[in-house]
């Protein structure tokens, strides 16, 4: 499908990206890859994905719009195109998703010059993997209720506390970390740091096991951890504001520094499954009720794609955040419903775990379904997302 509305630089870049991806599709992975970067468990997966990210970086598909002085490629409006082309090519996702879509954009807004130079290049190449320290066992959806404390000690801060839900923590060099520096103010008592993780004294990372039985997310304990003041982002007490920048990117309201690749519309895959699944002697793909469900799914995904496109047309957006703030909610529920449909189509075959050779598509659907709750719970449960949309976009009174 042809496209216009692009600058000549963007058109040239799109051509480059498409061509490069066609010629440089990565070799098949050594072991099954998970659906999303935050589910990466094993070192073999990490190594494979890290090397793919580096190649994409070198091809200028990552960090595309980041200024050159911080290791990027200094283009304008091209990251979106790169992401799109990677998605189109069906190549693997970027493992450093937290770095690219959260840390880098946040540091670009709130960081000092030296922080930018220190932190961004390694995030772009994928050499330094990032994780996120926003969730605590007691806080849940109430993100401002952070208990991890940071106490000033001269030029350093002493950090104590407990973070959970830390995807990629076991591979991470850095964490974006919210701490409480004052107990007097709920929101204004928060301060935002970047904190070294791997090998840093006092930091311990323990894998948490998901309902699938897989690892991939962690709890991180801080016991008298020293963080130099030079790693503080923005002012003391401004942590909430900085976190909002991060979440704007995480919730899909803005383009990060990269992160494209697989994980898109599962419609074709579901249709293929339906062709191989049987009901009363008929293929599920010939059962009209299943067909209706498949098409509903397809419409939701097409709607998500077209929302992304429409969000870029100011004349068709009365409220600038109305579409962007929907994307975490609609994306995570679309994935969940699609996976659930896959489970239903597979029928009794969905009882099988991925290790069973009889499991359709190597056990993809039930695992995807179970894992989908990561998406509907993490980064503000979808209940909270609905509050946010109702309050910030529709202007309804706060529910809390």
């Amino acid at each position, binding site marked *: *499908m*042809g*496209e*216009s*509305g*692009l600058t000549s630089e963007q058109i040239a870049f799109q051509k480059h990206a498409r061509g490069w991806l066609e010629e440089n599709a990565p070799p098949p992975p050594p072991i099954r890859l998970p659906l999303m970067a935050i589910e990466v468990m094993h070192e073999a997966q990490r190594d494979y994905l890290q090397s793919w990210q580096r190649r994409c970086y070198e091809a200028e598909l990552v960090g595309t719009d980041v200024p050159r002085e911080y290791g990027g490629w200094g283009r304008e409006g091209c990251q979106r195109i790169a992401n799109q082309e990677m998605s189109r090519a069906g190549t693997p996702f970027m493992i450093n998703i937290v770095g690219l879509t959260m840390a880098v954009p946040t540091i670009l807004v709130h960081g000092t010059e030296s922080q930018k130079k220190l932190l961004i290049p390694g995030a772009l190449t994928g050499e330094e993997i990032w994780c996120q320290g926003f969730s605590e066992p007691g806080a849940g959806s109430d993100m401002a209720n952070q208990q991890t404390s940071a106490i000033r000690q001269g030029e350093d801060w002493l950090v104590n506390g407990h973070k959970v839900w830390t995807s990629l923590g076991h591979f991470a060099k850095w964490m974006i970390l919210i701490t409480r520096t004052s107990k007097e103010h709920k929101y204004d008592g928060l301060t935002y740091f970047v904190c070294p993780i791997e090998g840093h004294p006092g930091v311990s990372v323990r894998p948490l096991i998901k309902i699938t039985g897989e690892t991939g997310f962690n709890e991180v304990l801080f016991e008298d951890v020293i963080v130099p003041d030079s790693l503080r982002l923005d002012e003391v007490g401004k942590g909430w504001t900085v976190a909002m920048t991060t979440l704007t990117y995480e919730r899909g309201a803005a383009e990060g520094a990269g992160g494209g690749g697989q994980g898109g519309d599962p*419609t074709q895959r579901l*249709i293929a499954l*339906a062709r191989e699944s049987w009901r009363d002697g008929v*293929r599920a*793909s*010939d059962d*009209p009720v299943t*067909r*209706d469900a*498949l*098409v*509903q799914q*397809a*419409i*939701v995904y*097409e*709607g*998500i794609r*077209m*929302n992304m*496109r*429409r969000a*870029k*047309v100011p*004349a*068709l957006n009365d409220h600038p955040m*109305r*579409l962007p703030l*929907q994307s975490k*909610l*609609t994306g995570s529920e679309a994935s969940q419903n699609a996976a659930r449909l896959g489970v239903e189509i597979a029928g009794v075959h969905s009882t099988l775990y991925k290790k069973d050779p009889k499991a359709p598509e190597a056990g993809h659907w039930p695992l995807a379904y179970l894992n989908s709750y990561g998406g509907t719970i993490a980064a503000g449960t979808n*209940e909270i997302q*609905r*509050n946010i*949309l*109702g*309050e910030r*976009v*529709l*202007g*309804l*009174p*706060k*529910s809390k």
Partner: protein
Amino acid sequence: MNQPSPVPRNFGFGSEEEMLRDLARQFLDENMPVEKLRGLAAPDPEPIYDDGQLPGWDQQVWNQVIELGWPGLAVPEHLGGSDFSLVGIVGLVEEVGRHALPSPLISTLNASWVLRSAQTKEADPFLQSLASGTPASLAMTGSRGGVEPGEVDVEARSTPAGVCLDGVSFFVQDASKCELFLVFARQGEGLKLCVVPREAAGLRIEQDQIHDVTRDQATLYFEGVEVNSASVVSDSGLATLQRAWPGLLCLVSADLCGTSEWQLQTTVEYAKNRKQFERPIGFFQAVKHPLVDAMIEIDRARSLLYHAASLVDADHPDAELSARMAKSAASDAGAYISDRSVQLHGGIGFTWECDLHIFFKRSLHNQALYGDGVHQRRRLADFLVGPIDR
């Protein structure tokens, strides 16, 4: 067929389209505020529902609409129209839906869209006539209420001068306001597309009694209606209608998106102001979350709609697929916000004096028109999954 032209990422919704839409919004805000609509279309139910009177509409506004050139938006420039993109027209129709405007505008736009799709020189004078303000409507539906091209109960037989029509055409939109009917009539295996004026001999128009107070609907009885060959604008009516279909689906979807957005915003305002248990009811998640879900459904429908319209504009082969997705999403969004708007208003929402019912019924009508969500998805499955292997 034209070659598909490139599809712009902004759907082709540029400054002209924005201007047209903003103008429409302003014009309708001024000329059809909801208080006026209520007075026109829904004053007292008895005359309409018990005595069979047609609900009111504003002929003055229609005359202004003609002056603004809206009936000719889809008509080529050399025939007096402005050859506007469908994306732009859809933007305007959303505003029409948002104001639940009673008028023959949409039926006329539909008719012009079909005439244009005929791609014959016989269609030109009628396109010209529509652009100059002659209101028209499509007569294309059989007694079973078929929601796809070709289910007609009118027969055409050849005469020396043209054709002669016998039969019945159902569910003709805004017939009481229209002067011309575009009639699809079966002859052998094919469909003829004929233009028949309302005063034609042998044509009897019987108004339906309907719920929607912002339009009218009629059944057309043809008893030996003579159509001269200049008025037979196409001999391949089925192909014409199939070409036109994605555009028609976009237009009705746009109306649905417009009513839905009005219902959403009106209910949001109510939820901010109405207090229960010492709080505005919008505080309660049982009110807030359904409104958010409605917003999400409406946005999905709108995005799919603009995409579909841009594919129609580009003569893209996926236009039908895309338009069916839009109609499915718009019908379902319309059903959901209609339901929640009444429910969340509580008692007052159940009364005639509250304006909600006007939009509720217009939406309900449009949800069914040209096929509801289930119907569109049945057709979409044939595209996406392939035909059923029996």
